[in-house]
């Protein structure tokens, strides 16, 4: 039971927020995270077209052998991505709470430019309270 990281991807596929929590996954550079977020954005679009039965959403949960990636797509196209251990059951609830925090601390912030990286102490501290202490 661990939450490894949180990403926020804007509607164009750019990574606007990335933070690590528990240890357990590889430490990557911010450039590598940007590339992975872009890839995930593309994959997400393709997965909704591969449905064998009618229309489909994009990928919601992606599983590896020791961790999983839970994706929350909002109606505005912003994606909240949570990397957790396989046994983690609260991923969906946490993402919903992160979305709430995003709405309150980022979208209502008059100094925030939409679709740009999130630099907001309010958001940071809300995430810390929600998930735990990050290593910045």
């Amino acid at each position, binding site marked *: 039971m661990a939450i490894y990281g949180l990403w926020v991807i804007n509607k164009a596929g750019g990574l606007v927020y990335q933070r690590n929590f528990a240890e357990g996954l*590889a430490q990557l550079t911010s450039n590598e995270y940007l590339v992975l977020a872009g890839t995930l954005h593309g994959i997400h679009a393709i997965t*909704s077209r591969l449905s*064998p039965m009618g229309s489909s959403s994009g990928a*919601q949960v992606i599983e590896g052998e020791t961790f999983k990636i839970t994706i929350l797509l909002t109606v505005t196209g912003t994606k909240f991505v949570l990397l957790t251990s396989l046994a983690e059951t609260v991923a969906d609830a946490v993402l919903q709470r992160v979305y709430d925090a995003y709405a309150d601390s980022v979208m209502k912030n008059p100094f925030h430019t939409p679709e740009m990286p999130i630099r907001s102490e309010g958001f940071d501290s809300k995430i810390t309270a929600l998930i735990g202490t990050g290593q910045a």
Partner: protein
Amino acid sequence: MTIHSLYIYDRHCICIYYQDWHRTKRPKPAVEGGILPAVSQAVSPLPLSIDAKAGTSSTYSSPRNTLSSSTGVVIATNDSAAPVPNTPLLQTPLPPAPTSSTGLAFDEEAKLVYGVVLSLRNMIKKLSGRDEQFVNYRTSSYKLHVFETLTGYKFVMLSDPKADSLRFVLRQIYIGPFLEYVVRNPLVRMDSREYGIDNEYFRTSIDRLVRGLSIFS
């Protein structure tokens, strides 16, 4: 709960086998040259002319045709000119004409599936920092499972989103039908990049295995 389709790719990124079960949105047949011969008759180009040719094809058109005597059973047909005729082994009736199509031709769809699998596999490897395998992903209407062998064959299965991990099924297909009717079949040209691995025994055997699963209903 059900299983929709199965794709097998070799290490050259080529789709070498396809089979589907419950699928309301079937792909359009592939364009000429889009897929290899002997991948799946259901999605091969010109599925109608194959039936017409089956009875009249010259025995001299291909050296392989010596195998397809009218009395014996064809064990491997790698040649598109000599497709498997309707044989009693494969009792499953062909699904009714596709009710609707994904709008994608099969070859396009196969490439997209492979692209997604490969990208996710690389992403999981990168994120974990280990040699960790990508296992599955789920959307609102289906779940995609992957099993990769050491030799680079990728078995991809699409199922109901509520299904548990079907990796063991893919493994069973690998150690059962695949080993028995593909690897040990001298008439299947594995790794050729020119032919798929479709043959009647393999298809029947997979069909039986999948239909026997509790999740298949």
